[in-house]
């Protein structure tokens, strides 16, 4: 599904963000991306969205080299990728329903689709009764569930999550993780960058650890890291 071939990326200030990264992620996998701040996790995700282009190497998604996509095709690439962020990124003046519907309207789905899909997905994330509320009327956990609903409402092939539990308490983190697992079970590939040791350890999924831009560990049923207690 996702393939990195000797990908390197250095930012303008000279900091190498990724160094010669080669990685394969199969369709339907659930992958944790771990590592200290500045280890290249976010760059990894930005490259997948083609918000950045690699300096060297190729990135393939669904068999296509995304570096060869013309600029105007990039939005179509992003329609196959859902995104969740630590800071939710909801539109503050749109209701929960509108925020989710926005993702469908923007890609030109007819209203009938919007009206059938949105309530369904809100049901899935357990917010059917908050459809009319504005984001600031919800708790952090609820806002993040809206963000997950928005990311998943057009059934993308890939779901990227950048520290989705970073702002949440353990209980809310738990419910977000349950959601992501559920989405993963539908066949969606999930890549999640996180600092949350407890979560990773409990889930026992594939763990890819980055350190200063290099992959230092790739474990099928991994934990956050043995020496983490010391490192952080």
């Amino acid at each position, binding site marked *: 599904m996702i393939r990195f071939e000797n990908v390197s990326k250095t930012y303008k200030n000279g900091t190498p963000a990724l160094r010669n990264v080669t990685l394969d992620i199969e369709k339907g996998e659930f992958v944790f991306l771990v590592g200290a701040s500045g280890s290249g996790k976010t760059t990894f995700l930005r490259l997948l969205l083609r918000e950045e282009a690699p300096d060297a190497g190729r990135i393939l998604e669904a068999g296509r080299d995304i570096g060869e996509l013309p600029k*105007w095709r990039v*939005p179509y690439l*992003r329609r196959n990728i859902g995104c969740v962020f630590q800071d939710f990124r909801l539109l503050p003046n749109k209701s929960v329903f509108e925020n989710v519907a926005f993702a469908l309207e*923007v*890609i030109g789905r007819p*209203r009938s689709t919007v009206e059938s899909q949105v309530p369904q997905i809100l049901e899935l994330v357990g917010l059917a009764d908050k459809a009319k509320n504005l984001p600031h009327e919800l708790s952090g956990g609820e806002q993040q569930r809206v963000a997950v609903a928005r990311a998943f409402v057009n059934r993308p092939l890939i779901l990227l999550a950048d520290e989705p539990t970073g702002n949440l308490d353990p209980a809310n983190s738990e419910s977000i993780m349950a959601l992501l697992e559920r989405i993963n079970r539908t066949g969606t590939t999930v890549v999640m960058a996180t600092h949350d040791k407890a979560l990773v350890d409990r889930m026992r999924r594939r763990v890819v650890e980055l350190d200063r831009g290099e992959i230092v560990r790739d474990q099928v049923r991994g934990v956050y890291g043995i020496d983490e207690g010391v490192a952080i």
Partner: protein
Amino acid sequence: MRVYLRYAFKETFTNLWRNRMMTVAAVLTVAVSLSLVGSALLLKQSAAQASAQWQQGTRVTVWMQPNASQSEIDSVKTQLAGMPIVKDCQYFTQAQDYQQAKTLLPADEWSVLTPSATPSSFRCVPTVPTDAFTVQSTFTNQPGVYQVTAPEQQIRQMNHAIRILQIVFLALAAVLLLSATVLILNTIRMAIFSRRREVSVMKLVGATNWFIRVPFITEGFIAGLLGSTVAMLAVTALHTWYPLHNEFALNTSALVGTNTVVLVVGVVIGSVGSAIAIRRFLDV
């Protein structure tokens, strides 16, 4: 497509309403600037027209000696008739000139005048006003010619004054237009800046650039349209009520022309300004 049109329409109007202070600011900027631009253009046309009309009235008069012979008079007459730069000539006999002098001069001056002492004259209209000087230099020292008068000084001064007036109005219009463009661009950019979050979310969920751009451009278009409507009203009011009299009075087609310029400029500045202002936020 229909879905998108409905979306763009809805988006445009909710945004105009949601950012109504910004909208009002943009509309007012366009309105004030274009009112001034339109007024300057109108005054420029008015000045140009007055100048043209004054020049139309330019005459050159060839005064003959009171004792000029008939052959001398005939010679001047044939020459004048043969000059392509002279549009029209009328001969005033001594008697006619005497009668006119009677109406023009104070009593104590014309009382010393007799018809036989009065010069006869050719009153001519040159094709181009400045040709009056050529006529003057051609005939001044001809036999039988007393003197040739053209309102030379006045024409020169008037033309000069009006040319300066026109340049001033035009320059004023240009400067105002430039400042209007900058102000509008800035207003729209601020409006978009306050919504960059929304734009970034749109890009995130896979909106194409045109999808994002069109509602903003429509918004700029509408702001430009509203602004230029106000400006057109102001220009029309100036045309109606400002004392542009006599030679300065402009007809309706000049007003329509000016208003068309105002409308087109407003709408173009609004939509192109938006397109330029949003470009920066569409990268990535």
